[in-house]
């Protein structure tokens, strides 16, 4: 059972990825896919999903629903899942799915795996793959309960919707009461930061916790000045410490960037960061730990201490520039 993200009235793009994940599961373990969508006004969205993916959809219209809230969402889903008893419940690994999935699992006594980015067969058992230890390794997990709740990493599973001649899946309409007894939604505030400095930059020098101190940010600034139109960005850790402003944060809770060149200095490569820089065309990573996960995301890997190495890059660029100048002079 795929739980489509709740986005009042609209079909959320993550729904496609969750259906794709469901299809992958289906290829390994025969079974039917169904989508469930909960919200205040979901009937149109439900029909759209049924059409697009040719799957049965359950639309749970919740009277009084104004916005996603963990408490009533968990209550409505728990009831539906207990009635349907699916083998797998697939949630998006987002601020919504990651919040409700473990609670639903605890309520129904289901095994739960969060942040799944792969499915394999392992020792004859179905295994779900997810990152461990800051992304340094992947763990393969198997679950023994009748129902397994999974939150699926965004951006991994893709699918082409069923071509038009496919018949739309049937839509079942249900109603549920929305009872947010202890929590109240007050409103949403958009991020107040303008990240255009880094989203527009063709070259990004990005610093992580490995930079060690706010004074060392100057090293990154100097390197950035040597490179044409380069901007300095950082990981959440660096921004949380106040070493860089939040308008310079790259990652799921910051900006997504796609520069021609991304130089990751002292960044471990946590998935929350990497998701914001996957679009970079060329990636250079510098880290003292040869097994830092950022190296898997890099074209060029350099195992060095950035404090010593960044000045060496500048010198080397300088030598190269001088070499070129001399060559021109000779001519």
């Amino acid at each position: 059972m795929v739980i489509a993200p709740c986005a009042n009235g609209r079909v959320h793009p993550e729904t496609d990825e969750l259906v794709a994940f469901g299809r992958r599961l289906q290829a390994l373990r025969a079974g039917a896919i169904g989508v469930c969508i909960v919200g205040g006004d979901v009937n149109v969205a439900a029909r759209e999903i049924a059409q697009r993916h040719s799957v049965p959809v359950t639309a749970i219209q919740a009277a009084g629903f104004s916005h996603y809230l963990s408490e009533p969402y968990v209550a409505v889903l728990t009831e539906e899942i207990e009635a349907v008893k699916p083998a797998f419940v697939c949630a998006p690994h987002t601020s919504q799915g990651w919040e409700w999935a473990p609670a639903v699992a605890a309520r129904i006594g289901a095994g739960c795996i969060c942040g799944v980015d792969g499915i394999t067969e392992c020792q004859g058992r179905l295994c779900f793959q997810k990152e461990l230890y800051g992304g340094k390794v992947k763990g393969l997990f198997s679950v023994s309960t009748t129902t397994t709740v999974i939150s699926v990493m965004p951006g991994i599973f893709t699918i082409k919707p069923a071509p038009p001649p496919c018949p739309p899946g049937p839509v079942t309409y249900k109603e549920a009461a929305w009872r947010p007894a202890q929590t109240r939604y007050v409103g949403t505030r958009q991020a107040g930061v303008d990240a255009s400095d880094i989203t527009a930059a063709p070259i990004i020098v990005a610093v992580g916790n490995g930079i060690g101190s706010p004074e060392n940010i100057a090293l990154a600034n100097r390197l950035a000045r040597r490179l044409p139109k380069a901007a300095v960005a950082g990981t959440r850790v660096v921004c949380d410490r106040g070493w860089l402003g939040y308008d310079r944060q790259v990652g799921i809770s910051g900006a997504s960037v796609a520069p021609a060149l991304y130089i990751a200095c002292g960044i471990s490569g946590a998935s929350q960061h990497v998701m914001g820089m996957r679009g970079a065309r060329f990636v250079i990573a510098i880290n003292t730990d040869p097994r830092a996960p950022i190296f898997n995301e890099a074209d060029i890997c350099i195992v060095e201490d950035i404090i010593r190495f960044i000045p060496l890059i500048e010198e080397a660029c300088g030598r190269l520039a001088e070499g070129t100048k001399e060559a021109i002079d000779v001519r």
Partner: protein
Amino acid sequence: MKILVCVKQVPDVERIVVRDAADGMAALDISNEFRMNRFDEFAVEAAVRIKESMAGASIHVITVGPGRAADVLKRPLGMGADQGIHLKTPTDADPGPAAVAAFIAGYARSRGYRLILCGSMSEDGLNGQVGPMAAAYLDLPYATQVIAIQPAPDPSELSIEREIEGGAREMLAIRLPALLTLQPGINRPRYPSLSRLLRAHRQGVETIPTETLRPAEAWVERLGLMAPPRMRASQVLTGSAREKADRLAAILKEKAFI
């Protein structure tokens, strides 16, 4: 107000060595250096700030783990927590989020905590499950990825903000007792004070064997580990630091970046 803060002892992730093992699998060499999960420092700090702003507030800090895990309680006690509780597991094996949540819920039930705080996830398991699961077991309202906590006009509520995609924030009012998991960056965790650390050392912690709590459910089993796949070329430059820098400059030139 009684506050319970959940903390986890984790190995130093940077020191972990991933080795190739048989059948394309991987193995880990975990050093013997453990520390407090960095994400939990924000939960401890948030509790201490509430205590400082509210007369009569007290902070209990709880951890689930083997014998060595008791050490992880020192830092929060040094930061300002009042009492440490160690739910001691019989072996070194991590019982997994469902069991940890059940143990914590088993302890917290009927002890009158108004607020339970957790970090957003642990650096080793990256699950972020203990908070929501403990809330479910305790039937408490909860919110994850909380980036701001303010007193509400109604003293039985808190005004909170959850961080959602792209840094936007959902504003909520949540009735106490409640459980919150906190986003990194909600505050700047303080350093523990020496005098508090010394006092914590004398005071000791309350130790409860997990066997006396609700039994652990082993639903999710780890069958193996794998090295993460390479998403790009991952060409490693070799030689002296200066040689690497020269090679890098040449690459930058070749690619017309300089």
